């Protein structure tokens, strides 16, 4: 995918000059990023770079001190997770936000339960819907009636993703989607992400794993100490150049060969 074609398209998400501070410490300072339909944007940076805080302002879990958010070119205000969901923004959290003792359908429909016409929980409809979505995403998944506590990391991740897909997420935020998974499960989740991308969903993926990012992302935004170092097209850069952005905060055109060599020193 080339970026030139995207300049004509309205971005799905545009975050302008976002700032968040905690008691005088700038966690995020004047950061602007954008996301296009069917695109995976990798958001990378060291610990404390402000990646999670930045996306939390989009998912409604953190209030921004300043900055503007545009969805489909229209300015929006997001004050709560509910606001974000109403805009089609779904988040899959690093520490999976699942109710451990409830089964997959209950978790998928948490707070948005399907009801019978008598106003009671419609568990069978919820299970049917869960089976349908999951059948498309991860056909091997069959454990619809056990507490999610007893599922593997990949299966739990599938539940979280199925939830987002069922509720027609257009913008998906994934915080370390493969951090807690084994190799086979990581592949499974990568496969899922490619499928979502093909469906036109825009994904912001936070990751520590540079290989993951190079494998999946179209563009990469790098943060360092709360600021945006820059956003690059994956096809235009090498892994070393991205590492240089992450570690010393220099863009590929600014960094010297010597500095690149020192990264491996």
């Amino acid at each position, binding site marked *: 995918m080339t970026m030139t074609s995207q300049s004509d398209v309205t971005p799905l998400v545009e975050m302008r000059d976002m700032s968040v501070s905690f008691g005088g410490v700038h966690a995020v300072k004047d950061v602007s990023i954008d996301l296009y339909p069917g695109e995976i944007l990798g958001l990378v940076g060291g610990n404390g770079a402000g990646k999670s805080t930045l996306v939390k302002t989009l998912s409604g*879990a953190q209030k921004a001190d300043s900055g503007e958010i545009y969805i489909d070119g229209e300015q929006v205000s997001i004050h709560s997770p509910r606001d974000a969901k109403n805009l089609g923004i779904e988040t899959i959290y690093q520490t999976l*936000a699942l109710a451990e003792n409830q089964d997959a359908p209950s978790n998928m429909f948490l707070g948005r339960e399907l009801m019978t016409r008598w106003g009671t*929980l419609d568990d069978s409809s919820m299970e049917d819907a869960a089976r349908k979505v999951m059948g498309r995403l991860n056909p091997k998944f069959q454990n619809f009636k056990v507490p999610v506590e007893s599922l593997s990391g990949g299966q739990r991740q599938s539940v979280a993703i199925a939830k987002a897909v069922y509720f027609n997420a257009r913008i998906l935020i994934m915080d370390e989607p493969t951090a807690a998974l084994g190799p086979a499960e990581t592949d499974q989740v990568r496969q899922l992400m490619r499928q979502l991308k093909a469906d036109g969903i825009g994904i912001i993926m936070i990751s520590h794993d540079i290989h993951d990012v190079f494998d999946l992302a179209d563009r990469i935004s790098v943060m360092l100490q709360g600021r945006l170092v820059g956003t690059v097209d994956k096809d235009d850069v090498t892994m070393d150049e991205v590492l240089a952005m992450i570690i010393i905060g220099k863009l590929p055109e600014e960094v010297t060969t010597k500095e690149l060599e020192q990264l491996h020193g």
Partner: protein
Amino acid sequence: MTISNTPMIEMEVLPDSKWRTALRDRPLLVLGIVLIALVIATAIIEPRYLSVSGLRNTVLIAAPLGIMAAAQTILMLTGGIDLSVGMIATAAAYVAGNQSPNGAGIAIVLGLLVGVVAGSINGVGVGIFRVNPLIMTLAMSAILLGLFTALSFTVLQGSTTVAQFIKTIGGGSFLGNRVPYNALVWAAVSVLIIYGLRRTGLGRLLYAVGDNPIAVRLAGIRIWQVQIAAYAIAGLLAALAGILLAGRTGAVDLQLAVNFLLPSVAAAVIGGTSIFGGIGSYSGTILGALILGVLTTMLTFLDAGQAIQQIVYGGIVLGLAWLYARVTGTS
């Protein structure tokens, strides 16, 4: 319960004893066996117990306790607790007694109202002002005791006996003096609560809030609304229990239901509801309340005083909390 047929799941490495497996997979069955064993033990101590009036007596004791324990169960599911159930019940009964000269209807409605108001205030404290449930409800208990002590000399002076209708539903029986009316009330409450917890959106949210409040918040739910609803319902149930209790004793005083606090927690814990939230059921609590009812009768036959009874309840709570932690492998 279906865990064992699914191959995808990591199996427990610890070797399971039969009892351990049984308690984890069929807790109600185990509780039922314990209940029957206690009834038999009591009958051995006092053969006259195994009669209609003996068993009726146990249900008569267990019903108000079971309703108060319903309040406790609902809150424990959310990861909360209510240390003010005893005092809310007492306050509600006191108002019902005071208003009895105006008719049983008014007395009951005003008594229940006391519970809803006190419970809602607990809910606002916990849900909106983020006060720890232990602190909030302990304070509520102290405030109610002080308030009603003062009121008993002023506005609430007068009647301390309850209307005949309250005496009947609290202490009377039907079908030839076999089935207590309060058991009927308890049965109705039980159906509503079991159904509500299993089949309504609020019921599911009560479990989810205790399970993972962060997940619930991120799902876009306002947790404080769930908490206020839970504490208000708990207040209502405590008040109902207090009024039934007043009907059984016939008169009210400010000590009426104070000794029910620990048993109400004990009944829920015996029934398998986790004090950490998210796990449990009211069916378990019902058996817990019946077990405590039999135990109380047994201790009475053994001529054990109130002090011994409290020690036994305390010991049960401690022992079971330890046992369930061992069985479920969680702290």
